[in-house]
């Protein structure tokens, strides 16, 4: 395991790890024995996370988490790039986009940890979607439009996958916790754009294919 990965994993809230790794205690025991007294608790916890989340998760759940991680990578890169582009985001909104970006980076780290060896690295991205949004990094209106697109898409995507996670309480709950954060993001970004924070009383889900069709143009 790389140092980077270890740091990411050690950063997971232990309570979350507890919920996600049902057999953590048993694993801790064996691993602690194998590693001897030199291993610190976070390192052992990290190892258990790596194994239990990645290698031991059933394929259908891994598929959902890889799908989610793909979207989080797009969002993470989108906000990183936007915040690094001088003069793009008006001063009064920089704090808000910093906060959103912080969460997306945390989601990438969290899902990467959850997936362990099954995690994917950030895919190659094209934030202009083949030139369709050529001024995304010079025109704040365009940037805002895409921000709303990604956030609303994220909400619909997690919603659409909840049923596929029903067999794993810990992962379902974590996904729901990400889902509502994306909805908070969507609301504020819409408000900045002068729109209502919602479209009606119910938020509709999107299938994986619908989401991939929408996100596809941003994957280079």
């Amino acid at each position, binding site marked *: 395991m790389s140092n980077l990965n270890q740091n990411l994993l050690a950063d997971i809230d232990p309570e979350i790890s507890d919920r996600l790794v049902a057999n953590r205690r048993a694993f801790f025991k064996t691993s602690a024995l194998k590693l001897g007294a030199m291993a610190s608790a976070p390192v052992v916890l990290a190892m258990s996370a790596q194994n239990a989340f990645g290698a031991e998760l059933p394929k259908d759940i891994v598929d959902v988490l890889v799908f989610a991680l793909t979207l989080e990578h797009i969002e993470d890169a989108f906000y990183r790039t936007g915040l690094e582009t001088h003069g793009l985001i008006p001063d009064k909104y920089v704090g*808000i986009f910093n906060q959103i970006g912080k969460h997306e980076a945390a989601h990438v780290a969290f899902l990467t940890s959850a997936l362990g060896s099954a995690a994917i690295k950030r895919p190659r991205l094209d934030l202009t979607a083949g030139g369709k949004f050529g001024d995304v990094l010079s025109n704040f209106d365009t940037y805002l439009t895409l921000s709303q697109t990604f956030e609303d898409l994220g909400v619909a995507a997690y919603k659409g996958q909840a049923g596929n996670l029903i067999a794993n309480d810990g992962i379902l709950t974590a996904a729901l916790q990400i889902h509502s*954060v994306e909805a908070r993001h969507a609301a504020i970004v819409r408000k900045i754009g002068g729109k209502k924070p*919602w479209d009606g009383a119910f938020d509709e889900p999107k299938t994986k294919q619908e989401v991939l069709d929408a996100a596809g143009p941003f994957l280079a």
Partner: protein
Amino acid sequence: MDVTHDSSRRRLLKWTGAGAALIAVSGAWLPNFGISTTLAADLGEGDVGILNYAYAFEQLEAAFYTQVIKTPYEGMSEAETSMLTDIRDHEVAHRDFLKKALAENAIPGLEVDFSSVDFAKRDSVLGTAKIFEDLGVSAYNGAGQLIENVDYLAAAGTIVSIEARHAAAIRDLLNMNSVAFAGDDVVDKNGLDVVNEPAAVLKAADPFIKTDVTAMSLV
């Protein structure tokens, strides 16, 4: 888990080893866990219990925003009126949706108690709205894993993100253009929103509900 008996509020929260919650709020400690008053509603078992739990919460929210619009606080702007009217309509739609889904299993209408809210004051109204919305998000986030039927899980999903949008909008009204919409008080370092078990939610909602709400077998 332990029995917690908060005698000052006469609450009983009891957990069985299997993780089933036995909860009584807002009323006397009920002997033999029976319901001793006509103003009582048990949420029921399994998915019905969870849907009733959501229905109880949506009733509370719908009643609150109905009052907010009926008696607007001093200086409510046009934009605020529009937003709060939308939210009222959403909560009423959620309430009616759940009532219809529950049909004959629905609990009766709850009697609410908003005596702690000053509907003439913006801070009091929006402060209460913030509590309700954040609590609603955490309640649905916690209820997801308790739902067995995948269709009910999907239905809850269409509601919870609207509650989260409400929460962000209300938080922004209270603290414009700050990070409060998704502040560090509700989103942890893993980027995860708050999650609460029914016992914690019912306890937090207790001061606003007169009717005894019990979850005799909410698993």
